[in-house]
Protein backbone atom coordinates (compact mmCIF):
# COMPACT_ATOMS: atom_id res chain seq x y z
CA UNK A 1 0.00 0.00 0.00
CA UNK A 2 2.74 2.45 0.99
CA UNK A 3 6.01 2.13 -0.84
CA UNK A 4 9.11 4.26 -0.27
CA UNK A 5 11.82 3.90 -2.91
CA UNK A 6 15.29 5.42 -2.76
CA UNK A 7 14.07 8.40 -0.83
CA UNK A 8 16.60 11.19 -0.41
CA UNK A 9 16.10 14.57 1.18
CA UNK A 10 18.66 17.34 1.18
CA UNK A 11 17.81 20.54 3.03
CA UNK A 12 19.18 23.54 1.22
CA UNK A 13 20.40 26.02 3.77
CA UNK A 14 22.56 29.08 3.29
CA UNK A 15 26.08 27.96 3.98
CA UNK A 16 25.69 24.45 2.66
CA UNK A 17 23.32 21.55 2.23
CA UNK A 18 22.20 19.10 4.90
CA UNK A 19 21.55 15.58 3.68
CA UNK A 20 18.97 14.46 6.21
CA UNK A 21 17.96 11.27 4.49
CA UNK A 22 20.21 9.51 2.02
CA UNK A 23 18.47 6.45 0.69
CA UNK A 24 15.39 4.88 2.21
CA UNK A 25 13.53 1.98 0.71
CA UNK A 26 10.79 0.04 2.46
CA UNK A 27 7.15 -1.01 2.08
CA UNK A 28 4.10 -1.03 4.27
CA UNK A 29 1.35 -3.50 3.48
CA UNK A 30 -2.25 -2.48 3.87
CA UNK A 31 -3.26 -2.58 7.52
CA UNK A 32 0.25 -2.98 8.83
CA UNK A 33 1.46 -1.37 12.04
CA UNK A 34 5.13 -0.49 11.69
CA UNK A 35 7.30 1.29 14.21
CA UNK A 36 10.17 3.47 13.16
CA UNK A 37 13.09 4.04 15.48
CA UNK A 38 16.36 5.79 14.93
CA UNK A 39 18.76 8.20 16.57
CA UNK A 40 17.81 11.78 17.21
CA UNK A 41 18.23 13.74 13.99
CA UNK A 42 18.24 10.67 11.80
CA UNK A 43 15.44 11.98 9.62
CA UNK A 44 12.33 10.31 10.96
CA UNK A 45 10.34 13.53 10.92
CA UNK A 46 11.74 14.34 7.52
CA UNK A 47 10.65 10.95 6.24
CA UNK A 48 7.14 11.37 7.63
CA UNK A 49 6.83 14.76 5.99
CA UNK A 50 7.82 13.30 2.65
CA UNK A 51 5.40 10.39 3.00
CA UNK A 52 2.56 12.69 3.94
CA UNK A 53 3.28 14.85 0.91
CA UNK A 54 4.01 17.90 3.01
CA UNK A 55 7.54 18.21 1.74
CA UNK A 56 9.12 17.35 -1.55
CA UNK A 57 11.90 14.82 -1.46
CA UNK A 58 15.12 15.55 -3.31
CA UNK A 59 15.00 12.23 -5.09
CA UNK A 60 13.27 8.88 -4.87
CA UNK A 61 9.55 8.23 -4.77
CA UNK A 62 6.74 7.65 -2.32
CA UNK A 63 3.76 5.70 -3.61
CA UNK A 64 0.45 5.24 -1.88
CA UNK A 65 -1.89 2.61 -3.31
CA UNK A 66 0.18 2.61 -6.46
CA UNK A 67 0.05 6.32 -7.19
CA UNK A 68 2.80 8.80 -6.48
CA UNK A 69 2.37 11.06 -3.48
CA UNK A 70 2.75 14.68 -4.55
CA UNK A 71 0.55 16.39 -2.03
CA UNK A 72 -1.11 15.39 1.23
CA UNK A 73 -3.39 12.46 0.40
CA UNK A 74 -6.89 12.42 1.77
CA UNK A 75 -7.55 9.74 4.34
CA UNK A 76 -4.13 10.21 5.90
CA UNK A 77 -3.72 11.72 9.34
CA UNK A 78 -0.49 12.92 10.90
CA UNK A 79 0.31 13.45 14.56
CA UNK A 80 3.17 15.90 14.61
CA UNK A 81 6.14 15.78 16.91
CA UNK A 82 5.65 19.47 17.68
CA UNK A 83 2.22 18.83 19.12
CA UNK A 84 2.08 22.25 20.79
CA UNK A 85 2.34 24.02 17.49
CA UNK A 86 0.01 21.67 15.65
CA UNK A 87 -3.10 22.67 17.61
CA UNK A 88 -5.01 25.80 16.65
CA UNK A 89 -4.71 28.12 19.63
CA UNK A 90 -7.87 30.00 18.65
CA UNK A 91 -10.03 26.91 18.89
CA UNK A 92 -11.17 24.98 21.89
CA UNK A 93 -10.02 21.42 22.35
CA UNK A 94 -13.30 20.21 20.96
CA UNK A 95 -13.17 22.48 17.91
CA UNK A 96 -9.62 21.34 17.21
CA UNK A 97 -10.66 17.71 17.13
CA UNK A 98 -13.82 18.47 15.20
CA UNK A 99 -12.32 20.65 12.48
CA UNK A 100 -11.07 17.93 10.08
CA UNK A 101 -14.42 16.17 10.33
CA UNK A 102 -16.32 19.37 9.72
CA UNK A 103 -14.11 19.96 6.74
CA UNK A 104 -15.03 16.48 5.49
CA UNK A 105 -18.70 17.44 5.87
CA UNK A 106 -19.35 14.66 8.36
CA UNK A 107 -22.92 15.16 9.64
CA UNK A 108 -23.16 16.99 12.91
CA UNK A 109 -24.46 14.19 15.07
CA UNK A 110 -21.93 11.68 13.79
CA UNK A 111 -19.20 14.27 14.24
CA UNK A 112 -20.19 14.89 17.83
CA UNK A 113 -20.14 11.19 18.56
CA UNK A 114 -16.71 10.73 16.95
CA UNK A 115 -15.25 13.69 18.81
CA UNK A 116 -16.68 12.61 22.14
CA UNK A 117 -15.40 9.09 21.72
CA UNK A 118 -11.93 10.28 20.70
CA UNK A 119 -11.63 12.71 23.58
CA UNK A 120 -12.79 10.09 26.00
CA UNK A 121 -10.35 7.53 24.66
CA UNK A 122 -7.40 9.84 25.39
CA UNK A 123 -8.80 10.77 28.80
CA UNK A 124 -9.71 14.34 27.97
CA UNK A 125 -13.47 14.29 28.09
CA UNK A 126 -13.43 16.80 30.93
CA UNK A 127 -11.78 19.71 29.09
CA UNK A 128 -13.58 20.12 25.73
CA UNK A 129 -14.07 23.84 26.23
CA UNK A 130 -10.50 24.58 27.25
CA UNK A 131 -8.06 26.09 24.81
CA UNK A 132 -4.86 24.21 23.97
CA UNK A 133 -2.72 26.76 25.78
CA UNK A 134 -4.64 26.08 28.96
CA UNK A 135 -3.52 22.47 28.91
CA UNK A 136 -0.40 20.73 30.11
CA UNK A 137 2.06 19.39 27.56
CA UNK A 138 0.79 15.85 27.83
CA UNK A 139 -2.80 16.96 27.50
CA UNK A 140 -1.99 18.92 24.35
CA UNK A 141 -0.34 15.89 22.88
CA UNK A 142 -3.41 13.83 23.62
CA UNK A 143 -5.62 16.37 21.89
CA UNK A 144 -3.49 15.93 18.77
CA UNK A 145 -3.90 12.18 19.08
CA UNK A 146 -7.64 12.50 19.56
CA UNK A 147 -7.86 14.62 16.44
CA UNK A 148 -6.11 11.94 14.40
CA UNK A 149 -8.18 9.16 15.91
CA UNK A 150 -11.49 10.93 15.38
CA UNK A 151 -10.56 11.48 11.74
CA UNK A 152 -10.59 7.70 11.08
CA UNK A 153 -7.84 7.80 8.49
CA UNK A 154 -6.75 4.94 6.29
CA UNK A 155 -3.12 5.75 6.99
CA UNK A 156 -1.93 7.15 10.28
CA UNK A 157 1.51 8.67 10.71
CA UNK A 158 2.53 9.39 14.27
CA UNK A 159 5.70 11.19 15.22
CA UNK A 160 6.61 10.40 18.84
CA UNK A 161 3.02 10.88 19.87
CA UNK A 162 3.47 9.78 23.48
CA UNK A 163 6.63 11.67 24.30
CA UNK A 164 4.96 13.99 26.79
CA UNK A 165 2.63 11.68 28.67
CA UNK A 166 3.18 9.72 31.84
CA UNK A 167 3.91 6.02 31.93
CA UNK A 168 0.40 4.91 32.80
CA UNK A 169 -1.25 7.10 30.18
CA UNK A 170 1.31 5.96 27.70
CA UNK A 171 0.42 2.33 28.29
CA UNK A 172 -3.26 3.15 27.90
CA UNK A 173 -2.62 5.02 24.67
CA UNK A 174 -0.50 2.20 23.30
CA UNK A 175 -3.40 -0.16 23.83
CA UNK A 176 -5.73 2.40 22.28
CA UNK A 177 -3.63 2.48 19.13
CA UNK A 178 -3.57 -1.28 18.86
CA UNK A 179 -7.30 -1.44 19.37
CA UNK A 180 -8.00 1.16 16.71
CA UNK A 181 -5.59 -0.55 14.39
CA UNK A 182 -7.28 -3.85 14.79
CA UNK A 183 -10.82 -2.52 14.66
CA UNK A 184 -10.43 -0.18 11.71
CA UNK A 185 -7.69 -1.89 9.76
CA UNK A 186 -5.76 1.34 9.49
CA UNK A 187 -2.16 1.34 8.28
CA UNK A 188 0.08 2.91 10.88
CA UNK A 189 3.63 4.21 10.78
CA UNK A 190 4.65 5.02 14.31
CA UNK A 191 7.85 6.89 15.22
CA UNK A 192 9.06 6.37 18.74
CA UNK A 193 12.18 6.59 20.84
CA UNK A 194 10.95 4.06 23.30
CA UNK A 195 12.34 0.71 22.28
CA UNK A 196 9.93 -1.29 24.40
CA UNK A 197 7.13 0.64 22.90
CA UNK A 198 8.26 -0.08 19.37
CA UNK A 199 8.40 -3.77 20.05
CA UNK A 200 5.16 -3.86 22.00
CA UNK A 201 3.24 -1.91 19.38
CA UNK A 202 4.65 -2.91 16.05
CA UNK A 203 4.27 -5.82 13.75
CA UNK A 204 7.56 -4.69 12.33
CA UNK A 205 10.25 -2.30 13.56
CA UNK A 206 12.33 -0.36 11.09
CA UNK A 207 15.58 0.95 12.50
CA UNK A 208 17.15 3.91 10.78
CA UNK A 209 20.84 4.65 10.80
CA UNK A 210 22.01 8.04 11.91
CA UNK A 211 22.23 10.82 9.35
CA UNK A 212 22.73 10.55 6.34
CA UNK A 213 20.12 7.97 6.82
CA UNK A 214 19.50 4.54 5.38
CA UNK A 215 17.38 1.65 6.64
CA UNK A 216 19.66 -0.19 8.99
CA UNK A 217 17.32 -2.99 9.90
CA UNK A 218 13.79 -4.10 9.14
CA UNK A 219 12.71 -6.40 11.93
CA UNK A 220 9.64 -8.58 12.02
CA UNK A 221 8.04 -8.66 15.49
CA UNK A 222 6.86 -12.20 15.89
CA UNK A 223 4.87 -11.65 19.06
CA UNK A 224 1.29 -12.87 19.41
CA UNK A 225 -1.33 -10.57 17.94
CA UNK A 226 -3.11 -10.29 21.27
CA UNK A 227 -0.83 -8.18 23.41
CA UNK A 228 -1.23 -6.80 26.86
CA UNK A 229 0.98 -4.62 28.94
CA UNK A 230 1.77 -7.14 31.65
CA UNK A 231 2.15 -10.43 29.84
CA UNK A 232 3.53 -9.45 26.49
CA UNK A 233 6.30 -7.38 28.03
CA UNK A 234 7.23 -10.32 30.20
CA UNK A 235 7.65 -12.73 27.27
CA UNK A 236 11.23 -13.89 26.70
CA UNK A 237 10.81 -13.18 23.00
CA UNK A 238 9.88 -9.61 23.87
CA UNK A 239 13.10 -9.29 25.83
CA UNK A 240 15.09 -10.71 22.96
CA UNK A 241 13.54 -8.40 20.46
CA UNK A 242 13.98 -5.28 22.59
CA UNK A 243 17.61 -6.16 23.21
CA UNK A 244 18.08 -6.62 19.52
CA UNK A 245 16.54 -3.24 18.69
CA UNK A 246 18.52 -1.60 21.46
CA UNK A 247 21.73 -3.00 20.08
CA UNK A 248 20.79 -1.84 16.61
CA UNK A 249 20.14 1.68 17.80
CA UNK A 250 23.38 1.75 19.65
CA UNK A 251 25.10 0.63 16.50
CA UNK A 252 23.20 3.20 14.50
CA UNK A 253 24.22 5.92 16.85
CA UNK A 254 27.84 4.96 17.28
CA UNK A 255 28.46 3.67 13.80
CA UNK A 256 28.25 6.38 11.25
CA UNK A 257 28.58 9.23 13.71
CA UNK A 258 32.05 10.13 12.55
CA UNK A 259 30.97 9.84 8.98
CA UNK A 260 28.03 12.07 9.72
CA UNK A 261 30.11 14.72 11.39
CA UNK A 262 32.63 14.84 8.60
CA UNK A 263 29.83 14.98 6.05
CA UNK A 264 28.18 17.90 7.75
CA UNK A 265 31.46 19.67 8.28
CA UNK A 266 32.12 19.28 4.61
CA UNK A 267 28.68 20.64 3.80
CA UNK A 268 29.18 23.58 6.12
CA UNK A 269 32.35 24.65 4.34
Amino acid at each position, binding site marked *: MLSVRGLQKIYKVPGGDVEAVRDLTFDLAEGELVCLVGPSGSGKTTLLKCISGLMEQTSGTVELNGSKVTGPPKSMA*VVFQEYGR*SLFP*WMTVRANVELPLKNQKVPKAERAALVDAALKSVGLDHVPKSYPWQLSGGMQQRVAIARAVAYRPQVLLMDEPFAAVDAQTRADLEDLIRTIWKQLGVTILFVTHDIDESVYLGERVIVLSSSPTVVQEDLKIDLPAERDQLNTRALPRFMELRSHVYAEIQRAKLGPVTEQITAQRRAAQ
Partner: protein
Amino acid sequence: MSPLKRIAYFVSLPILLIIVWWALSFGSTNFFVPKPIELAQTLWSTWIGDRFFDDVLPSLGRLTVGLFFAIALGIVLGLLIGSTRWLRNLLEPLLEFFRAIPPPVLVPLLMLLIGINDGMKVAVIISGAIWPVLLNTVEGVRAVDSVLNDSCRSYGIAGFARIRYFVLPAVSPQIMAGVRQSLSIGLILMVISEMFASSSGLGFTIVQFQRNFAIPEMWSGIVVLGLIGLGLALIFQFVERRVLHWYHGLKEITHDS
Protein backbone atom coordinates in the same frame (compact mmCIF):
# COMPACT_ATOMS: atom_id res chain seq x y z
CA MET B 1 -9.87 46.00 37.74
CA SER B 2 -12.43 48.15 39.43
CA PRO B 3 -14.39 50.62 37.30
CA LEU B 4 -12.99 53.46 39.38
CA LYS B 5 -9.42 52.44 38.63
CA ARG B 6 -10.32 52.03 35.00
CA ILE B 7 -11.70 55.55 34.84
CA ALA B 8 -8.63 56.83 36.65
CA TYR B 9 -6.38 55.27 34.03
CA PHE B 10 -8.59 56.67 31.32
CA VAL B 11 -8.52 60.29 32.40
CA SER B 12 -5.39 60.81 34.51
CA LEU B 13 -2.83 61.54 31.86
CA PRO B 14 -5.19 63.67 29.74
CA ILE B 15 -6.08 65.77 32.79
CA LEU B 16 -2.42 66.12 33.67
CA LEU B 17 -1.62 67.25 30.15
CA ILE B 18 -4.49 69.72 30.11
CA ILE B 19 -3.22 71.26 33.33
CA VAL B 20 0.28 71.57 31.91
CA TRP B 21 -1.15 73.10 28.77
CA TRP B 22 -3.28 75.48 30.78
CA ALA B 23 -0.26 76.59 32.79
CA LEU B 24 1.85 77.07 29.68
CA SER B 25 -0.80 79.01 27.78
CA PHE B 26 -1.77 81.09 30.81
CA GLY B 27 -0.12 84.37 29.88
CA SER B 28 -0.03 83.74 26.14
CA THR B 29 -1.63 86.25 23.87
CA ASN B 30 -0.74 84.38 20.72
CA PHE B 31 -3.65 84.29 18.38
CA PHE B 32 -2.93 80.79 17.12
CA VAL B 33 -2.42 79.12 20.46
CA PRO B 34 -5.62 77.83 22.03
CA LYS B 35 -6.40 77.95 25.73
CA PRO B 36 -8.14 75.05 27.46
CA ILE B 37 -11.10 76.95 28.93
CA GLU B 38 -11.78 78.95 25.83
CA LEU B 39 -11.47 75.77 23.80
CA ALA B 40 -13.91 73.88 25.98
CA GLN B 41 -16.50 76.64 25.59
CA THR B 42 -15.93 76.77 21.85
CA LEU B 43 -16.20 73.01 21.63
CA TRP B 44 -19.64 73.11 23.10
CA SER B 45 -20.97 76.09 21.19
CA THR B 46 -19.48 75.04 17.88
CA TRP B 47 -20.31 71.38 17.62
CA ILE B 48 -23.45 70.78 19.59
CA GLY B 49 -26.43 71.56 17.43
CA ASP B 50 -26.97 71.81 13.70
CA ARG B 51 -23.35 71.42 12.87
CA PHE B 52 -23.34 68.01 14.44
CA PHE B 53 -26.02 66.79 12.09
CA ASP B 54 -24.95 68.74 9.01
CA ASP B 55 -21.21 68.25 9.20
CA VAL B 56 -20.18 65.64 11.71
CA LEU B 57 -22.69 62.89 11.02
CA PRO B 58 -22.31 62.82 7.21
CA SER B 59 -18.55 62.75 7.69
CA LEU B 60 -18.84 59.88 10.11
CA GLY B 61 -21.06 58.08 7.63
CA ARG B 62 -18.45 58.36 4.90
CA LEU B 63 -15.75 57.39 7.36
CA THR B 64 -17.65 54.26 8.34
CA VAL B 65 -18.18 53.22 4.75
CA GLY B 66 -14.58 54.03 3.85
CA LEU B 67 -13.15 52.13 6.79
CA PHE B 68 -15.37 49.16 6.11
CA PHE B 69 -14.15 48.87 2.55
CA ALA B 70 -10.56 49.65 3.44
CA ILE B 71 -10.50 46.90 6.05
CA ALA B 72 -12.42 44.38 3.97
CA LEU B 73 -10.39 45.05 0.84
CA GLY B 74 -7.15 45.13 2.82
CA ILE B 75 -7.84 41.73 4.31
CA VAL B 76 -9.04 40.10 1.11
CA LEU B 77 -6.23 41.50 -1.01
CA GLY B 78 -3.77 40.81 1.78
CA LEU B 79 -4.77 37.17 1.96
CA LEU B 80 -4.50 36.82 -1.81
CA ILE B 81 -1.22 38.66 -2.14
CA GLY B 82 0.30 37.14 0.96
CA SER B 83 -0.38 33.58 -0.08
CA THR B 84 0.34 33.87 -3.79
CA ARG B 85 3.92 34.68 -4.47
CA TRP B 86 3.56 35.53 -8.14
CA LEU B 87 0.72 37.89 -7.35
CA ARG B 88 2.85 39.58 -4.74
CA ASN B 89 5.72 39.94 -7.17
CA LEU B 90 3.36 41.31 -9.78
CA LEU B 91 1.55 43.81 -7.61
CA GLU B 92 4.00 44.90 -4.96
CA PRO B 93 5.84 47.56 -7.00
CA LEU B 94 2.55 48.92 -8.29
CA LEU B 95 0.99 49.09 -4.85
CA GLU B 96 4.10 50.70 -3.43
CA PHE B 97 3.87 53.23 -6.22
CA PHE B 98 0.35 54.25 -5.26
CA ARG B 99 1.13 54.15 -1.58
CA ALA B 100 3.67 56.92 -2.04
CA ILE B 101 1.35 59.35 -3.83
CA PRO B 102 0.30 62.20 -1.55
CA PRO B 103 -3.47 62.64 -1.15
CA PRO B 104 -3.36 66.30 -2.28
CA VAL B 105 -2.36 65.13 -5.75
CA LEU B 106 -4.34 61.93 -5.63
CA VAL B 107 -7.62 63.68 -4.82
CA PRO B 108 -7.82 65.73 -8.04
CA LEU B 109 -7.16 62.56 -9.99
CA LEU B 110 -9.92 60.70 -8.15
CA MET B 111 -12.15 63.69 -8.74
CA LEU B 112 -11.44 63.34 -12.43
CA LEU B 113 -12.06 59.60 -12.48
CA ILE B 114 -14.90 59.22 -10.00
CA GLY B 115 -16.49 62.62 -9.92
CA ILE B 116 -17.41 64.96 -7.15
CA ASN B 117 -19.51 62.94 -4.79
CA ASP B 118 -19.43 60.90 -1.65
CA GLY B 119 -17.95 58.03 -3.64
CA MET B 120 -14.86 60.10 -4.30
CA LYS B 121 -14.49 60.98 -0.65
CA VAL B 122 -14.93 57.39 0.37
CA ALA B 123 -12.33 56.43 -2.23
CA VAL B 124 -9.90 58.90 -0.69
CA ILE B 125 -10.43 57.34 2.71
CA ILE B 126 -9.92 53.86 1.30
CA SER B 127 -6.85 54.97 -0.63
CA GLY B 128 -5.08 55.79 2.60
CA ALA B 129 -6.61 53.51 5.19
CA ILE B 130 -6.14 50.30 3.25
CA TRP B 131 -2.36 50.15 3.55
CA PRO B 132 -1.86 49.24 7.20
CA VAL B 133 -4.38 46.41 6.94
CA LEU B 134 -3.02 45.26 3.61
CA LEU B 135 0.64 45.31 4.60
CA ASN B 136 0.02 43.68 7.95
CA THR B 137 -2.13 40.99 6.40
CA VAL B 138 0.44 40.23 3.72
CA GLU B 139 3.25 39.99 6.25
CA GLY B 140 1.10 37.95 8.60
CA VAL B 141 0.17 35.47 5.90
CA ARG B 142 3.79 35.09 4.94
CA ALA B 143 4.67 34.22 8.52
CA VAL B 144 1.99 31.68 9.45
CA ASP B 145 3.27 28.84 11.59
CA SER B 146 4.66 26.05 9.47
CA VAL B 147 3.51 23.23 11.75
CA LEU B 148 -0.04 24.57 11.81
CA ASN B 149 0.11 24.90 8.07
CA ASP B 150 1.24 21.28 7.78
CA SER B 151 -1.57 20.21 10.11
CA CYS B 152 -4.08 21.87 7.82
CA ARG B 153 -2.64 20.36 4.71
CA SER B 154 -2.39 16.88 6.13
CA TYR B 155 -6.06 16.96 7.13
CA GLY B 156 -7.03 18.18 3.69
CA ILE B 157 -8.21 21.55 4.96
CA ALA B 158 -7.87 23.70 1.88
CA GLY B 159 -9.46 26.57 0.01
CA PHE B 160 -12.04 28.56 1.86
CA ALA B 161 -11.96 26.36 4.95
CA ARG B 162 -8.24 26.91 5.21
CA ILE B 163 -8.75 30.68 5.12
CA ARG B 164 -11.65 30.57 7.50
CA TYR B 165 -10.23 28.22 10.11
CA PHE B 166 -6.52 28.71 9.78
CA VAL B 167 -5.17 31.72 7.92
CA LEU B 168 -7.61 34.36 9.09
CA PRO B 169 -7.35 33.54 12.79
CA ALA B 170 -3.61 33.04 12.55
CA VAL B 171 -3.15 36.46 10.98
CA SER B 172 -5.77 38.17 13.10
CA PRO B 173 -3.30 39.65 15.62
CA GLN B 174 -1.48 41.38 12.80
CA ILE B 175 -4.69 42.34 11.03
CA MET B 176 -5.82 43.95 14.25
CA ALA B 177 -2.62 45.95 14.44
CA GLY B 178 -3.34 47.14 10.92
CA VAL B 179 -6.98 47.94 11.60
CA ARG B 180 -6.03 50.03 14.57
CA GLN B 181 -3.71 52.07 12.37
CA SER B 182 -6.35 52.35 9.71
CA LEU B 183 -8.89 53.89 12.05
CA SER B 184 -6.85 57.00 12.67
CA ILE B 185 -5.53 57.21 9.13
CA GLY B 186 -9.09 56.95 7.85
CA LEU B 187 -10.03 59.84 10.06
CA ILE B 188 -7.16 61.91 8.74
CA LEU B 189 -8.14 61.16 5.19
CA MET B 190 -11.73 61.95 5.91
CA VAL B 191 -10.51 65.46 6.67
CA ILE B 192 -8.32 65.58 3.59
CA SER B 193 -11.12 64.30 1.34
CA GLU B 194 -13.27 67.20 2.45
CA MET B 195 -10.62 69.75 1.70
CA PHE B 196 -11.44 69.40 -2.00
CA ALA B 197 -14.68 69.75 -3.88
CA SER B 198 -16.68 70.02 -0.76
CA SER B 199 -19.08 72.31 0.95
CA SER B 200 -19.76 70.55 4.19
CA GLY B 201 -18.33 68.00 6.55
CA LEU B 202 -16.13 67.96 9.59
CA GLY B 203 -12.93 68.27 7.59
CA PHE B 204 -14.34 71.03 5.42
CA THR B 205 -15.43 72.92 8.51
CA ILE B 206 -12.06 72.61 10.19
CA VAL B 207 -10.34 73.89 7.08
CA GLN B 208 -12.83 76.76 6.85
CA PHE B 209 -12.13 77.69 10.44
CA GLN B 210 -8.44 77.56 9.77
CA ARG B 211 -8.69 79.71 6.68
CA ASN B 212 -11.00 82.16 8.32
CA PHE B 213 -8.79 82.55 11.34
CA ALA B 214 -11.41 81.08 13.63
CA ILE B 215 -8.58 79.55 15.57
CA PRO B 216 -10.35 78.35 18.73
CA GLU B 217 -13.03 76.82 16.55
CA MET B 218 -10.38 75.15 14.43
CA TRP B 219 -8.76 73.63 17.50
CA SER B 220 -12.13 72.54 18.77
CA GLY B 221 -12.60 70.71 15.47
CA ILE B 222 -9.31 68.96 16.02
CA VAL B 223 -10.46 68.00 19.50
CA VAL B 224 -13.60 66.54 17.94
CA LEU B 225 -11.36 64.50 15.64
CA GLY B 226 -9.40 63.28 18.63
CA LEU B 227 -12.58 62.36 20.45
CA ILE B 228 -13.87 60.46 17.44
CA GLY B 229 -10.53 58.69 17.28
CA LEU B 230 -10.86 57.81 20.92
CA GLY B 231 -14.38 56.54 20.37
CA LEU B 232 -13.22 54.38 17.47
CA ALA B 233 -10.39 53.06 19.60
CA LEU B 234 -12.80 52.04 22.34
CA ILE B 235 -15.07 50.25 19.92
CA PHE B 236 -12.01 48.64 18.43
CA GLN B 237 -10.73 47.51 21.80
CA PHE B 238 -14.06 45.88 22.53
CA VAL B 239 -13.94 43.99 19.25
CA GLU B 240 -10.29 43.10 19.58
CA ARG B 241 -10.74 41.55 23.02
CA ARG B 242 -13.32 39.23 21.60
CA VAL B 243 -11.52 38.40 18.39
CA LEU B 244 -8.11 37.95 20.02
CA HIS B 245 -9.03 36.52 23.41
CA TRP B 246 -7.26 33.28 22.52
CA TYR B 247 -4.17 35.20 21.51
CA HIS B 248 -4.07 37.16 24.71
CA GLY B 249 -4.39 33.93 26.64
CA LEU B 250 -1.65 32.31 24.60
CA LYS B 251 0.67 35.27 25.08
CA GLU B 252 -0.35 35.64 28.71
CA ILE B 253 -1.45 39.20 28.09
CA THR B 254 -3.60 40.46 30.90
CA HIS B 255 -5.89 43.19 29.81
CA ASP B 256 -7.56 45.49 32.15
CA SER B 257 -6.84 48.89 30.74
